[in-house]
């Protein structure tokens, strides 16, 4: 696995983690609902900005 791929994957999973953690923090009262929504956008950008480059498509898997 190349360092570039590892870096991309790390950022991707950080994006997913943010998507899970932000609403839980809002529920616990740690952040406001508006901040929660901003963090969800940040998580989305991190995920799509990196996952597109390392998730490969296997056409033969489209059974």
């Amino acid at each position, binding site marked *: 696995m190349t360092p570039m791929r590892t870096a991309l994957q790390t950022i991707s999973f950080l*994006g*997913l983690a943010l*998507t*899970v953690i*932000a*609403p*839980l923090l*809002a*529920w616990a009262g740690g952040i406001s*609902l508006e901040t*929660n*929504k*901003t963090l*969800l*956008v940040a*998580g*989305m950008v991190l*995920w*799509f900005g990196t*996952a*597109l480059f390392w*998730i490969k*498509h296997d*056409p*033969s*898997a*489209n*059974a």
Partner: protein
Amino acid sequence: MSPSARPQTLVERLDALYEYDREPVHEKKLHGGKTFIAMFAGEHVAGTEFVLGTLLVAHGVSAFDALVGLLVGNVLAVLSWALMCAPIAVRERLTVYWQIRKIAGPYLTIIYSGAFALVLCLLAGAMVSVSTTAIAHPLGIESANYAAGERWPSLPWMGLAAVIGAVIAVLAVLGFERIAHFSKVCAPWMPLIFLAGGVTGLSLLGVRSPGDFWEVAQTRIWTGVPFEGQSKYGFWSCVGLAWLCNISQHMGMGDVTIFRYAKKWYYGFASAFGMFIGHYLAWICSGIMCAAFMESARAAGVASPNPTPGNIAWLGAGWAGLVCVVLAGWTTANPTLYRAGLAFQAATPNWSRWLVTLIAGVVMIATACIPAVNFYLDRVVGNYGLFFMPLGAFIFIDYWVFPRLGLERNFAERHRLRASWPAAVGWFGSVIVCFLLFAKDNYAAFHGLNDLLPAFLARYRPDFFMQVLPEWLLAVTLYTGCSFLQQRRLRPVGPPR
């Protein structure tokens, strides 16, 4: 006229279209379990999950009905995939098209393919409608509130749906490999947005600790009281909807086309990833978002809140929620339209792929502009499942039971029949009888049937979504009984297989 120049019949064109899939899948092309887990997890988180979870809240299911009923229904769906669909798929390794053709003959297969293409257009239209509600939201274009009597959307909304539908149709014409890749990228993220929206919804509904959940679930989410003008659903409706929702794919055997690539039959259990993420977690989260939206809107003085996918996702997850709605609708509408175009292509006189796909796209856009489709989406899904399921029942019985009864398998194919009358009687007979038994108590025009029926049938009050079992039993009984008559009349060409 040379044979190649001879105009092809509808049957020949349909066969040619699926010619590539005529032979069983070769062992080298088989896939491991991970492929099926990814496929199910990705394919069953669609834009329509935002609608179905909302509909359960609107139809007044209780918290127990929703949480336990959906659990039971989804377990039944997974068992149907794992024990009915996948085992036959890995033994025969043929598409559903060829399996139906072998037992029902080409004419019934054409009816199946044509009707399925129309249904795919309807479903793609529902998904375009879902995506449109999300894009309309920030543009300030109101989506039609069907419950409040708005039967048609505004012209700007229709224009927006037409643009979104046109983009989807063009992408389907160009081929959907890139879209399939993008769907794969979306798959891990979308369920988390449902979850985020659900957790935010719980915050808005006043759940401060896990101990508060059940109280809030019973009194403010799944209250057991339907919205004004909606019918009441109960436990069995939840079980039935979760089971019926993909029935054309499991008991109806549509997914033998996918599982023919599986190395082992038990990969059928991979469907659990689709069901429990898409049809359990996502439906529950969209139900929570719907309840939170209705409370917020009423608190803001809105008399008739409109819980569209765009509105509830905006409340639950903001811009990320809106993007999720658009992508969930788009990534599933695209392959759905592509497959509809493929099926329609066979029924047209040598029209090109781009032309039939664009025509299917027009049907899809027209459907997207009918708010009733999403308002009654649970019924639409239920009706099409009940319509196609009997053919899957015949595949199951033909494979497992016919040899034990001394009946020939694949009778239509072996005797070169254009149409199998036992399959026709079993298919249309079971669908019509089950429809009439439901209609006699639910549609005024059919109330008179109760006076004509024997007392035990007049007393029978089927739940719409729980007609699966009676219809399956009736279909296989009619098919098997008629097959006995048919095979006793005709001399077999060889020993039973």
